[in-house]
Structures are given as structure tokens and as C-alpha cells.
């Protein structure tokens, strides 16, 4: 407990006590602030626009279907191989540029957003859904085509402005 050279022992003790008092004053003043805690299941915060919840493939209201062309760029860029695409086929058996199944594995997804960024057709969006627990591992693999997700709210507006070229790229 070497005091700084400019202080004598008495000064250093007094300044030490003063600084202890200062610390106590600060914690006391904090005690009278309103808690900033959000009581989670009952109260919820408004999530930011770019919040990365689970992946969805929203229905484009103008097309009435998803914007996906089954180009599998997302499959190739995914670091964990969390995405599998099965191409749709026409009546003659020739593959169509549209997915029959879009299998998204929540268990391995790390929410890196690379699939969303690489998609040239803005078919993918990271949604606000974040309560993703399941009781069965099979429940972690979702088919994004059959679920026919509809985006709502601010995120929908943002997404539509993006694929209309009104929003700068992230």
C-alpha cells in the first residue's frame, strides 16, 4: 500500500476514505434507479430490424410463392451444411428452377447470415423467431417451402424494399 510520493500518510488515508465514500455514494444512487430488467416471458423488447432469428423463406405477396430458384448458392456457402435443397421437377421429370423441399437444420445453424447475403433473389430472411426449443431432434429440421411463411411488420417492409432495390445492400 505505497502511497503516491506527493501524498503524506495522513493525506493518503484521508483521500482513500474519500474515494471509498465516493464509491458507496455511486452504488447508493444506483439503488434508487428503476431496474432496467425486462420481465421476459411477459414483457418483450422490440427486436431490431436486423435481428437474426431462424431462417425463413417468405412468400412474396406479388408472386404468391417464394422467390427461390433452387440455385443452391446457399447450400454451397453454408459453413455447416445446414441447408439441403431438393429441386422440383416438371411432369416430364426435368428439373425446374424452384425448390420442392428446402430443408433447414436448426440444430447446426449458427445464424451467420451468409445464406441470406449470398442469395441473389432475396429469397431468404432471418426472422424474429428466437424461441426455438424442441423436445425432439427431428423437430430441428424444417422444410421452409411447405411452411409458407408470411413476413409481417417492419421486417416485411424492409425485405420488400430490399428486393425492389430501394434499400442499400447490407
Amino acid at each position, binding site marked *: *500500500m505505497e502511497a503516491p510520493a506527493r501524498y503524506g500518510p495522513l493525506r493518503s*488515508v484521508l483521500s482513500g476514505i474519500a474515494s*471509498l465514500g465516493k*464509491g*458507496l455514494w*455511486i*452504488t*447508493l444512487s*444506483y*439503488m434508487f*434507479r*428503476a*431496474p*432496467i*430488467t425486462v*420481465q421476459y416471458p411477459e414483457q418483450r423488447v422490440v427486436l431490431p430490424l436486423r435481428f437474426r432469428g431462424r431462417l425463413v423463406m417468405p412468400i412474396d405477396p406479388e408472386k404468391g410463392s417464394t422467390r427461390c430458384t433452387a440455385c443452391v448458392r446457399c447450400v454451397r456457402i453454408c459453413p455447416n451444411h445446414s441447408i439441403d435443397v431438393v429441386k422440383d421437377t416438371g411432369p416430364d421429370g426435368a428439373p425446374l428452377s424452384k425448390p420442392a423441399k428446402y430443408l433447414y437444420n436448426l440444430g447446426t445453424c449458427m445464424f451467420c447470415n451468409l445464406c441470406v447475403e449470398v442469395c441473389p433473389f432475396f429469397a431468404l430472411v432471418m426472422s424474429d423467431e428466437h424461441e426455438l426449443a424442441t423436445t425432439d431432434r427431428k423437430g430441428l429440421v424444417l422444410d421452409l417451402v411447405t411452411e409458407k411463411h408470411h413476413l409481417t411488420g417492419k421486417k416485411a417492409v424492409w425485405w420488400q424494399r430490399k428486393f425492389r432495390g430501394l434499400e442499400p445492400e447490407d
Partner: protein
Amino acid sequence: MGGFLYDLFYNTDRLLNGWSTAAHQSWAARGWPPVILDGLLQLAWAVAAGVFLTVNALFIIWFERKVAARIQIRRGPNRVGPWGLLQTLADTGKMLIKEDIVPDAADRAVFRAAPLLVLVSTFMLFVVLPFGKGLVPADLNVGLVYFLAIGGLSVIGILAGGWASNNKYSLMGGMRSAAQIVSYEVPAVLTVLSVALLAGSLKLGDIVRAQPAYGYVLLQPIGFLLFLTASNAEINRGPFDLPEADSELVSGFLTEYSGMRFAFFLLAEYTNLFLSGAFAATLFLGGWRGPLLPPVAWFLLKSYFVVFLLIWVRWTFPRLRVDHLMELSWKVLLPLALANLLVTAVLVKVL
């Protein structure tokens, strides 16, 4: 009935003495030896103290969590029961049904006895604690000496726990605790001595009665601060929690303890916190004396006020380094306590 209720709260000593003599008389009328009745009465005190000790510890843990939360702008426990009051009860229930783990390399007997040793020394302090007028199991005429002597006993349990765990963290925690408690006992004793000088008695009841209405805190401001600091260090809390120092020693002497034995240590720790507050209130804040409210209410209010001060300090200051801790005791607190004692002694003699 109003008279009985008034007596129950304000003249507890008269009521208790009346009951005690009546019981003794009817006991003697049957020709039974009075030793057995005395034993039974003491057992009643012990049970009352045990119940109080448990409920009090449950409350203080909740209280500390709430205060800590408010200091960190949080809410603290608020799910179990109103305002989260039953949270500690739920935690205790969980701890009691946990597996009782004793490490293979541990000294089994000592390992098992250590939590009890700590708790017993804490429990024994309730013998001299005056909760209200006459509400004290035994107002010994060496009450102050008893308090200091028994209070220092807990170090044996902590050291035993640290040693018996056969774990280097536990051992270091136990050793640190021993060094710390022994070092801080000295300034604590010297400060308490100046209170004894002022009151002219070692009996806690007399010390309470000898205090002016505002308590000894105004006559002994330095003494009060020294006592708070020293007793805070003796109960291994606040900025002096080196024996448990999580960041260095995992949990110190508690490392190998789990379940019920851990709960016992925790019970002893929080009861010690209350006892520090209670003895500070008794020695410096006028104990159970105060206007209007019943003595017990005053005593509890003052004790919990000091407990609040200690909690506030704990959640404000960072932990001291080991050598700083020793220097604070021997180089700062001890000279201050000696000077305080000297000045008090001279003033008591002169005035």
C-alpha cells in the same frame, strides 16, 4: 387481553420471569428436581434460537440478493412467492435433496464435522444476544468476552473443512481464512474494549442500558467503523472474501462441499452476517432501546440496518489483495484501534 399483549411486546422480561417462577413453583410442588426444568427451558431457548437462525438466514440471503440486484439496476428474485420471498426456501429445498458428495481423498470424519463446527460456534453466540428487554437466554456477566471467544471458534471449522477436503484450493482458502480471522480479531477486541470502558461492564444487558439514547456510535464513531470493518473481515465477506475468492480459489474452503453441507456453511455465513449486525447494534446503536416500537422491533431494525450497510459495502468494493489485507489490519486498523482505546480510556478517567 390488551394488557397481556402490551406485556408480551414491551415487558417481555416481566412476563418471562413470571412464567419461569410459576413453572418453577409448580415443578417444585411436585417434588421434581429443578435441574430438569432448567434444562427444558434452555432447550426451549435453543429451539427458538434455531428456528430464528434458519428463518433469519433465509431472509437475509433474499435481502442481500435484492439489494445487490438494486445496486446493479436489476430486480432480483421475484418469481417464487411475493417479491421472490420464497426463493431461498426453494433453493434450500433443492440443496437438501442433493447427493452428499465426499471426495475419495478427503478425511471423511473431519470433512463431515467441519460444517457442524462452524454452525455450532455461530449458534452458541445466540446465548448472549439480547433480543429485547430480558429476551436473552443468558445475560452472562462476561458476555462480551464470550462473544469474542466463541466468535473466533468458527475458524476451526473453516480450517478443518479446508484441510479435510484434501484439495489445494480448499486448503489455501482455509489457511487464508485462519490468518484473516486471527488478524482482524485483534482490532475488533480493542474496539470492543473501548465500549466496555465506556459502559463499565462486560455484560451486554448493562452495555445496552448504559448507552445514551443515541447510542455509543456518536461517542465512538471511529470505533463503530473499526468494528464494522473488522467484523466484516472476520465473517469473510465483502471486500475481504479472500478465503472464497472465486477468481483465484474456485470457492476456497467451500470448493468440495455440496448439497446439505454446503447449505450448512451458507447458513453459518449468513447467520454470522446477522450476528455482526446484531452485535454492532447492541454495542454501538443502543441495542433494543428506542421510542414507541417494541424492543424486539428496534433490535431487529437496527441489526438489519447494519446488515444492510455490510451488504452495501460488499457489493461496492473490489476484493483486497492478500498482503494488502494483512497490512490493513496490522498497519492501519490496529494503530487506530489502540489510539481509540487510549483516548477513550483517558477521557473516561478524566470526565
